């Protein structure tokens, strides 16, 4: 156990446990578990929840394969410490479908065959779901015209350029990008 020697004689040492107990609401169900502080949300999902949809690609927030929705927002789960997400609502690709009925983004990816190896697909799909919500909420992007961005907030119309820009945090080394863009366009229509 580390000790915070500096100042130890002045004030009581802060608790420096290396584990904490957290409650995560994953795909609807609350689960309380004890995590090593070093554990990321990605590792917790894959190892404690056995939800292996989210993938460990680069493990540095650069590839997007680990993308999940936390409190409705798309994030890189490889950069989130599980201990810091106590109480959070997490939706993984496994939690998108409504029973046997696939989420519209999942259905579009299947219909467009928007993948080759499929490793990046769960991250692409979760990212697309979060991205569509952001655009519906009127969030501008880098390619939204400066004058448009300064206009009244309303849903942003997504053309292929907007989709490519907003999905740039998800890499596909097979290069399935054209079909991924088409699949997302299908959902918008």
């Amino acid at each position, binding site marked *: 156990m*580390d000790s*915070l*020697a*500096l*100042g*130890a004689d002045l*004030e009581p*040492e*802060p*608790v*420096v*446990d*290396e584990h*904490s107990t957290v409650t995560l609401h994953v795909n609807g169900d609350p689960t309380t578990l004890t995590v*090593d*502080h*070093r554990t*990321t949300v990605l590792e917790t999902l894959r190892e404690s929840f056995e939800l292996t949809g989210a993938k460990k690609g680069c*493990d*540095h*927030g650069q590839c*997007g394969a680990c*993308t999940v929705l936390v409190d409705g*927002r*798309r*994030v*890189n789960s490889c*950069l*989130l*410490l599980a*201990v*810091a997400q106590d109480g959070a609502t997490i939706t993984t690709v496994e939690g998108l479908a409504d029973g046997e009925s696939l989420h519209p983004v999942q259905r579009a990816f299947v219909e467009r065959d928007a993948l080759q190896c499929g490793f990046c697909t769960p991250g692409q799909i979760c*990212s697309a779901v*979060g*991205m569509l919500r*952001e655009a519906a*909420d*009127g*969030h*501008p*992007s*880098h390619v*939204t015209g*400066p004058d448009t*961005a*300064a206009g009244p*907030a309303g849903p942003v119309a997504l053309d292929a350029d907007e989709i*490519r*820009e*907003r*999905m*740039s*945090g*998800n890499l596909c080394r097979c290069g399935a990008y054209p079909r991924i863009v088409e699949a997302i366009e299908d959902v918008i229509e």
Partner: protein
Amino acid sequence: MKPFGYVRPASTDEAVRLCAEGAGARFLGGGTNLVDLMKLGVETPRVLVDVSGLPLDRVTRTADGGLGIGATVRNSDLAAHPEVTERYPVLSQALLAGASGQLRNSATTGGNLLQRTRCRYFQDVSKPCNKRLPGSGCPARAGTHRDLAILGHSPECVATNPSDMAVALAALDATVVLLGPEGERAVPLTEFHRLPGENPDQDTVIRPGELITEVVLPPPAPGAASRYRKARDRASFAFALVSVAATLRVAAGRVEHVTLAFGGVAHRPWRARRAEAELRDAPATPAAFQHALIAELAEARPLRDNAFKVDLARRLALDVLGELTERQPTRTG
């Protein structure tokens, strides 16, 4: 990653106290840079003080018509905030030019200002680096430095500050509010980040235990247009080779108000004071812009492989100033 403690303070005062209590404490915001650096072994905190739940997540108008931006406001929320898109478009554009949608959803205002350089030698613990390990040397000077500094660097360090947001904040005359064991103080953003000098391990003037609580913007310059442009190796999700943030007001063909800042060229956002001084009351013409930019960049000292940045900075700023001249808002009354 080495084991570490984790605490979630209930107030900013408690956060500052917890951080001051022991060496090796780090504030945790979104974690998009800190957690990454912990994985790389660059950062080895003994305890994380998680400030992301503190009530610092508000964007509010200040009494004088400026804007107060809480330290834990997420980059994506700030970029989409109506006060920002309508009154400080250069800030929204800078935020949206940075990182990815996922990262912007996690990254905080305070964390963005404290992110470390992406110099590859800094991030690789098997290499010397004066910023990571003072006195160990700087392999970048003779090594890979195409994306590193052309202005204000030192023999010890040629790293660049990677933030887009900070470049816009520099052009907007923002102030950083810090809370520390000895109380609160405010530092102009242009003085918050340091030039490397002989102490490149210190990115900023922040003192041990100090917490960024807020960034404050003055009211926007009346009638001025603003713009952020970024040149990079790919169209999206890449750090700047060079970026430019500018605000400009032209009246009767002359420059009445101008601020200009460069990103990707130095250890801190580079406020182009010399060019601004040359431009004030000068004709708003490409020739005058060119003259001022050449004067500013005369002090550039490019490295072996990044001389292209000098020209890129000049041309990008020339484009931005030209665009802002054409986009002057129609003035009424």
